């Protein structure tokens, strides 16, 4: 690993940002996270430059979602309780898929089922679409009823992934929740079930309170915390999974706002990153980060991003 500042920096255009996550090859390591990209966003940024788009979670039936307020800004972050508001599987195929199938980046479809069988049914149906490149299993959304909390239980996680594995040849990523004591155990279960990698972290369950009204600030009462406030939690969990399961393809998510944040996730063990809250703050965030990454790598003498993944030196606990 060349680290000496005396090394002449490589030319920026020769920097290789490509990422390999199991069978999924990305032109670059920057994706936009589920639920934070859609509608008019492709009008203000060049989607084709992204490593990939993770579509908002699709459920079997349409869901109206939660009452407002659905977002609440907190110190260094925000809570959301959208509640998986979506068109449902067939509605998504009719209304949303035609718009995104023309994107030249990778398309990852996030799915969430009420049962393990429903997860598999979603994957099986979406697998018929030619432009779906991979699946992300949302086993960890904090804003839905208890039936969907597969991600807190390693054996349930393994079962969900195994059923979905049987339903598609395409890459599968399990999106992990931080609301567990041992994230590596859940990651291991997902990999045992046949996942090609893991995405972490989903939002951290939280709450905001209006003491004058003596009421919760969010219409959905509790919500998921995201943004810079959760980045240290996400980094710790990415590092724990990378350390416990060497070689596991990891997509890092959690409060990534700029290229330095992304670099932190790469050295901690993530091969790619997903932006969530950053898209809401500035729909051009992914492009700003992509523009800045080559220079970050050049500044440490690196020519290939993948040489740098998981290279953080940290002594054992």
């Amino acid at each position: 690993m060349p680290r000496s500042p005396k090394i002449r920096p490589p030319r920026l255009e020769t920097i290789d940002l490509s990422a390999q996550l199991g069978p999924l090859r990305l032109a670059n390591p920057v994706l936009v996270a589920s639920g934070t990209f859609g509608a008019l966003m492709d009008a203000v940024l060049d989607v084709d430059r992204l490593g990939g788009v993770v579509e908002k979670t699709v459920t079997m039936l349409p869901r109206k979602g939660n009452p407002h307020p659905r977002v609440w800004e907190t110190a260094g972050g925000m809570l959301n309780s959208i509640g998986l508001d979506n068109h449902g599987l067939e509605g998504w195929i009719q209304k949303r898929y035609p718009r995104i199938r023309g994107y030249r980046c990778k398309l990852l479809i996030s799915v969430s089922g009420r049962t393990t069988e429903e997860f598999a049914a979603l994957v099986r149906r979406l697998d018929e679409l030619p432009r779906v490149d991979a699946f992300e299993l949302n086993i960890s959304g904090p804003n839905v009823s208890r039936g969907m909390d597969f991600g807190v239980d390693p054996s349930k996680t393994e079962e969900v992934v195994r059923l979905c594995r049987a339903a598609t040849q395409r890459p599968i990523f399990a999106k992990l929740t931080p609301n567990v004591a041992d994230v590596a155990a859940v990651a291991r279960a997902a990999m045992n079930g046949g996942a090609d990698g893991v995405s972490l972290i989903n939002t951290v369950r939280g709450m905001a309170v209006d003491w004058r009204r003596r009421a919760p600030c969010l219409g959905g009462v509790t919500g998921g915390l995201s943004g810079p406030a959760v980045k240290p939690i996400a980094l710790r969990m990415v590092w724990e999974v990378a350390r416990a399961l060497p070689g596991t393809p990891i997509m890092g998510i959690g409060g990534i706002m700029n290229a330095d944040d992304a670099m932190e996730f790469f050295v901690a063990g993530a091969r790619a990153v997903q932006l969530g809250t950053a898209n809401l703050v500035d729909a051009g965030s992914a492009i700003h980060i992509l523009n800045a990454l080559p220079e970050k790598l050049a500044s440490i003498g690196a020519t290939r991003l993948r040489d740098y993944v998981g290279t953080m030196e940290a002594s054992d606990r």
Partner: protein
Amino acid sequence: MKPGPELTNGDAYVVKQIPYGPGCWLIRLAAPIHAPIAAGQFAHVRVDPENDAPLLRRPFSFWDTHVHDDAWTSVDLLYTVVGRGTALLERRRPLDKVGFLGPLGRGFTPRRDKRIFVFVAGGVGIVPFHLFAKQIRRSGHDPRIILLFGARTAGALWGVDDFPALDVEVHAATEDGSRGSKGLVTDLLETRLRKLRRRDLMIYTCGPDAMMKRVIQSARRKQIPCEASLERRMGCALGACGACVTRVRDGADWRYSRICLEGPTYDAADLVLDEAQA
């Protein structure tokens, strides 16, 4: 939803801030805006693009627009200081950068078949009506415009003196009676509606949800068409995150509509009112 290739997402510069009353400012921003701006549309503003606090953008209605030949446009946003974001905006000085995303959303529909427009505004809900009146006067359609403007007190009738120059008849209602009639603007509306011919009228309203709910109820009772401009806490303002929603009719059922995309201006007939009050 048709993508707007003319949407601007970039830095705007503060030209100036003009005091409009206690805790109320007009901020003029210069930005490379190419799209025509309709009254009732909004800008999603990042008050400090070099800082992550506050994190999210804040939505503001346009008070006025100034189109220049060189593709740079300046826009006036009128705002009151109500929280962290607007407190920070108040401290921005000329040549400071702010993030500008816009113009966004659906503006008011000028009903050319109506002879009398009644604007019912509450507090800072006055903002889109200034640009609306200006655009109507420029359009060649020449309706009588009556502004019914409610606020707690005379000092909070933001920008009220800018309306007579646009040939707008102004009637104020203040809760403390310090200007105009004492009481609620919705009572003022009821009184006015009795004196006007129903089929000449079109009502436009913007203000607190409770006020708009009563305006919409009055309009429905008298079968007068009405448009309402809503406000919610927003995330992306591009229709992606699903944060800003209101209930709208959907056949026999209802659905959540994303205000940033399908609103903020709605035909009042489409709104499901219980939600508008919440």
